């Protein structure tokens, strides 16, 4: 149980603390039970689920970069049916007081609609608090354009999900666009309760001995501390544009200070991914750090969220650099 100071309200969902396990980095929960009680987290986001199971990409699937990594897992997942039958019973027990968000995706706007319908149909059985919509997928029918980077497809995918479910929806935004803000606006306009940001950046590593890309698929998604400033930037921009849109901040968070950067920039809660690979206790340490910060300064997560905007110090983040 976290103290009341840590309560994090993200639109319709209240988390006992603002620290969530990010999609694809905490498996189906039980893997972490050896290390700490997953129920002590604010929330838990499942690996992305499709209607059909996916094997994912060939090896190598990961490569280490400077304070980060690239991955090309390829959204390997057991598929909806196996998830509900084989994973959910344990997962529900594991997640306990933490809120579960089911992360979903598809290969076309229609597939998003289909998986959302499945979640809606099984919602009682799963006991999830909401849905996170991962739009970082290529539309296989339209020749691989990434759904999260194309406004029309993005809109169609979110709309389809909204039509199928009354569960709270968080749309997980890709940073691989010219401007994340209009995507957040579009999600809001389509009736999403909030946004999660950011997913991974495009990245590649070359093996200089073998003279070819390290990953089996060539390139992958960059995550880890390296990308922290990028996630904080977009959190700040989205919060400035839509002050009432709840944000789950993600990207490079490894310490309570990192988490606090996102909260101050405008997130209501945050997610931890890559850092938990290196230090499975990262979330626990972050919760403890935030608890200490809040009680020493007699403040709350709710008060801190977006506080960097209240100083009125900057009109608009610089578009000038260099």
């Amino acid at each position, binding site marked *: 149980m976290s103290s009341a100071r840590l309560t994090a309200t993200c639109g319709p969902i209240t988390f006992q603390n603002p620290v969530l396990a990010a999609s*694809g980095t905490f498996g189906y929960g039980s893997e972490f039970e050896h290390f700490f009680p997953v129920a002590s987290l604010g929330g838990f986001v499942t690996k992305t689920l499709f209607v059909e199971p996916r*094997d994912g990409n060939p*090896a190598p699937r990961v490569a280490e970069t400077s*304070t980060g*990594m690239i991955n090309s897992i390829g959204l390997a997942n057991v598929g909806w049916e196996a998830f509900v039958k084989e994973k959910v019973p344990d997962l529900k027990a594991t997640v306990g007081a933490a809120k579960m968000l089911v992360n979903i995706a598809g290969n076309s706007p229609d597939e998003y609609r289909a998986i959302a319908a499945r979640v809606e149909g099984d919602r009682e059985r799963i006991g999830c608090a909401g849905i996170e919509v991962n739009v970082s997928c290529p539309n296989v029918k339209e020749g691989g354009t990434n759904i999260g980077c194309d406004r029309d497809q993005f809109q169609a995918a979110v709309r389809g999900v909204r039509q199928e479910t009354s569960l709270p929806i968080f749309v997980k935004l890709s940073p691989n666009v010219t401007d994340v803000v209009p995507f957040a606006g579009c999600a809001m306009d389509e009736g999403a309760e909030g946004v999660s940001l950011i997913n991974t950046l495009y990245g590649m590593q070359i093996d200089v001995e073998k003279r070819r890309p390290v990953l089996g698929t060539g390139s992958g998604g960059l995550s880890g501390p390296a990308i922290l400033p990028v996630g904080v930037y977009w959190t700040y921009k989205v919060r400035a544009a839509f002050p009432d849109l709840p944000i789950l901040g993600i990207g490079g968070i*490894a310490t309570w200070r990192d988490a606090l950067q996102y909260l101050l920039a405008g997130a209501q809660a945050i997610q931890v991914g890559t850092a938990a690979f290196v230090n499975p206790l990262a979330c626990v340490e972050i919760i403890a750090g935030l608890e200490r910060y809040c009680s020493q300064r007699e403040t709350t997560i709710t008060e801190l969220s977006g506080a960097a905007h209240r100083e009125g110090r900057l009109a608009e983040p610089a578009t000038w650099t260099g």
Partner: protein
Amino acid sequence: MTPSPTAAGVFALPLASTADIAAGTSWLRFRPPPDTACEPGQFFMLSTVAPSPVAYLGRPFSIGDVRDGEWFFMLRALGRGTAWLRTLELGTMMRLVGPLGVGFARDESKVHRMIAGGIGLAPFLFLARRLRTEQPEAAIELYYGERDARSHIELTADEKELFDTVERFTDDGSLGIAGSVVDGLENRWAEPEVAWYGCGPQPMLRAAAAKLEEHDVDSAQFAFEERMACGFGVCQACIVPNRYPPPRYHLLCTEGPVLEIGKVAW
């Protein structure tokens, strides 16, 4: 005795000692809290508590030996991360996540035969130590190959005691028998009542598996390697193709690192 995965933990421990045992190869020693059980073939993810500039992710290492409740890892510098781990000062606070994965099943057998290539030797001292206690009548054999004498890890007298036979090979003949372990085993693949264990480079394991298959040996436990980001089943990095899909892949860190060779699509 089939090992059941023991509960993994996160340990922050100072590096208690290091010892060079061959070119680029050292023992790392740690003093864990009492009663933390490890099984031969299991592994730990090692990193430094202070974030490292060189190796952001942890690196997997087999539990190399357990003596007087202390943990030993046999580490060979092969790349950036391992080279850096070898330079750490005594007392550096390390993070050890484990023990992870499923180790070697230790069924009763007349002969336990281990084939090791290079740093593939790492899990076998501990395996032999356990087998000695559990099956005192069984013969324990080690066939260990290296590139050359410089890389060859000289076993201590105590370590040699763990084996009834130690046959050594080097590619260049600078120590032991010239040639590969697989060639050197020529007439012994068909021997009955042998439990086979393997660990080493992929080409060596593949050649050994081919020999075993050729001789209708249908069981052998090989410890595999694959890139790992987490080591405990959440990142889906560590895939090994499954001979009999679905699923298409094994997850090496939780289903392995030790796999029956029949399960793997080479």
